[in-house]
């Protein structure tokens, strides 16, 4: 039987009259790295904060390592590595202070790993947190989280503000860590090309709703981009083929569809020479799902089908 490390049931959170997260049900198995994708304000941060138990759900519940988020057992809370976008150490604290703080709570804190990561950025442990650049701050916080050897990682835009080389280093460290320790991670990010290298699954949230949660490999296999001329007449797609989105520009129509291998063959036969069918990157898939809001997308689909 699969072991679910993270489990949410109808997780909902309202801020006043605004529903930030709407009925999210998710089960994440041990050792999975989940890319949490969605546009700004989609509900990613709220989702991670609910999982961490920082805020109370309006409805539903969430569990990490079978412990309810809002009342986590002592043995569980120290096994979670969290890096949010609204938490920062005091400006006056030195890197050494932060190392001691994290080491106090993470019984298995890897000082050598942390010191290596500090030296990698040519920093000194005597430096105060406030004197660091935005990228250096992110690097130090990520180093603290990974050195704490958590079983579960909840990371909200961990690479934001890092230069490309540091970003790559961070994701390499993250990949090595989750592989070695069989840790489970949820990484909310906008930089899809980076996370694509390390994620096993993708969860897309838009307007507080979980639109899709699937293995990345499946998504790559199933999602296709169809490019055809705008002059092409209306194509009657079989019902099994799910149209995710599309756009029309410069005399070319682009459609993103989701189908299984058998249906893909049908599709190829149906379209013949009229169109080109390609596999898509996660970024394209994500854009197909979230670029347009549902009304706009429906309207554009009608237009393209015409």
């Amino acid at each position, binding site marked *: 039987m699969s072991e679910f490390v993270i489990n949410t049931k109808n997780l909902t959170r309202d801020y006043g009259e605004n529903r930030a997260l709407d009925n999210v049900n998710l089960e994440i198995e041990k050792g999975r790295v989940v890319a949490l994708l969605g546009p700004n304000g989609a509900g990613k941060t709220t989702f991670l904060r609910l999982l961490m138990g920082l805020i109370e759900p309006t409805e539903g519940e969430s569990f990490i390592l079978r412990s309810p988020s809002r009342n986590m057992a002592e043995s569980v809370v*120290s096994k979670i590595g969290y890096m949010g976008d609204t*938490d920062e150490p*005091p400006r006056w604290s030195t890197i050494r202070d932060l190392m001691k703080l994290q080491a106090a709570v993470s019984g298995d804190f890897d000082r050598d790993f942390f010191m290596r990561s500090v030296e990698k950025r040519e920093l000194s442990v005597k430096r105060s947190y406030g004197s660091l650049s935005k990228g250096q701050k992110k690097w130090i916080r990520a180093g603290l989280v990974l050195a704490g050897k958590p079983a579960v990682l909840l990371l909200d835009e961990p690479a934001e503000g890092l230069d490309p080389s540091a970003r790559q280093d961070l994701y390499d460290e993250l990949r090595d860590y989750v592989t070695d320790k069989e840790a489970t991670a949820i990484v909310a990010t906008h930089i899809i090309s980076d996370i694509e290298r390390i994620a096993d699954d993708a969860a897309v949230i838009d307007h507080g709703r979980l639109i899709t949660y699937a293995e990345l490999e499946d998504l790559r296999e199933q999602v296709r981009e169809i490019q055809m001329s705008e002059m092409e007449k209306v194509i009657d797609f079989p019902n099994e083929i799910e149209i995710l989105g599309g756009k029309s520009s410069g005399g070319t129509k682009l459609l993103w569809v989701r189908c299984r291998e058998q249906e893909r063959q049908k599709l190829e036969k149906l379209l013949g020479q009229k169109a080109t069918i390609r596999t898509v990157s996660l970024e394209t898939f994500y854009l197909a799902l979230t670029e347009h809001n549902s009304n706009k997308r429906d309207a554009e689909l009608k237009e393209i089908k015409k």
Partner: protein
Amino acid sequence: MKIRISLLKILFRQTLPATLIALPVGCFYVLLTKQVLSWRNPWMALFVLVHSIAIAVMSGRYRSKTFAFLYTRGFTRDELWCNKMLNTTFSVLTVWLPVALIIWLPIRSAVQDKLFVSPYFPIMMMREASVPWVWLGGYAILLPLFHYVWIRRAQPLRGGSGVILLAISVVIVIGILMLFRRHPLWFRFLIYVLSTVMIAASLIAGRILHRNLEVQ
């Protein structure tokens, strides 16, 4: 629940501005006041009140980034609460103890004798010896209450202004009690009992609330 020195260090640093201001103010006031100090001294009562508010506010910024950071390190809520209360005690003692020692040693009477040639200096230490304990009692009553009120008002719960009114009422009652020089023995006993109940209730309510507080 464990005492975490590294966490205490950060919490103590948060309340340090209040400590650094209160320490010299308290010491100089006690050294330089010529009248014999009593538990009814309004300036020291105001000092205890303002110092308590400052500690509660500085250690309870629940919307600050630092708080979110501390609450996501892996400490349990109870650990955080316990260390916060411990830090409150340290912050108070850092100010209260030097002030009390100035009275008890007796540095105050010596200074009053040599510098100000105060006629009261021979009786000062004897008459003022119990006064620091009253100030400490004031901290013990006000701080758990202010901590609770400050957490409570920052939470998205109903009745936020109600708890502020409660704190104001307690301060007014203490102020009224201070207006009267002598209280009957039974009334003093009643005050002690009520104060103990209020301290215990504030601590318990604060701890329960702290377990459920939302960190923004």
